[in-house]
């Protein structure tokens, strides 16, 4: 299948998710269960996408594990998103000299 078709589906679905509530929906979601699920979904998605994929992200299990640990520590101390992301990469890069 052509990549353009994939991209069109991706972009179309993503835009619809944003535009329907933003432009047309005027009520509030009442269901407590549904609201709770919407609250937890982003964290669940990010966790499932990160584990175990992060360990394969640098081409070496060791550098990836060190990068992950660095990111966890930086995030634990509440550093900004960009800082955490770059610290993870820097740690993975530095460790590769030792491996």
């Amino acid at each position: 299948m052509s990549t353009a078709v994939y991209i069109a589906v991706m972009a179309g679905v993503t835009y619809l998710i944003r535009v329907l509530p933003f432009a047309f929906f005027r009520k509030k979601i009442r269901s407590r269960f549904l609201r709770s699920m919407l609250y937890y979904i982003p964290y669940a998605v990010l966790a499932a996408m990160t584990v175990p994929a992060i360990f394969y992200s640098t081409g070496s299990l060791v550098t990836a594990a060190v990068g992950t640990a660095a990111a966890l520590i930086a995030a634990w101390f509440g550093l900004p998103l960009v800082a955490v992301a770059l610290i993870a990469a820097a740690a993975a890069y530095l460790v590769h000299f030792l491996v």
Partner: protein
Amino acid sequence: MHSRSDLLRGLGNGLPIGLGYLSVSFGFGIMASRAGLSVAETTLISLTNLTSAGQAAGVDVIASHGSLMEMALVQLTINIRYALMALTLSQKLGSRFTLPRRLLAAYGITDEIFAVCAAEKGEIQPSYMYGVILIATIGWVLGTFLGAAAGSLLPQAVTDALGIVLYGMFIAIIVPPARRERPVLFTVAVAAGLSLVCRYLLTMLSGGFAVILCAVVAAAAAAWLFPIKDEEEEDAA
């Protein structure tokens, strides 16, 4: 003129977002070109989607030749949070936000842009939101282009290390709330555990569907065990 000062204020508040996006999307560009996408395709994805996790998952679907239904479901699951943010923002739009303007500004609802716009006192002005979105989008698309185009010019060790950037950002989003709130920690642990099961035991599941399954089960379990209180609704972003 009122709307010009709103625009400038939006550009100013959006600048840190744009700079952050620049570095993160650089990693996305490298990741996508490694998955076999061209520079143009990769840049087009960033321009038309403006989202990190959804794009990363979308590239996985493309690389593994998944079905279009899988692609649509993956995007729906990963990006459904934007519907909640859009809903929240829609309550703060004044009369200046006519339908065509809403159709335009909806394009730019991301976690960070939502946060900056939701923090506005009173109504959100269209020019303000345009400003934030414009500078953030420039950063996101430019970073993607540079990563996809020049990523191959960098030493292998550098691009290897940059492969972790996007995941590092995900960790930065997850950890602080997981530290504060037990239910979030529970959600993250269950989702990560299920993801490991899918990856190593249920190997017939494709990556996209695995993420959907893990996320929905973990979030439903958390919603059932720890329903949110009304005042927590604001934090939902």
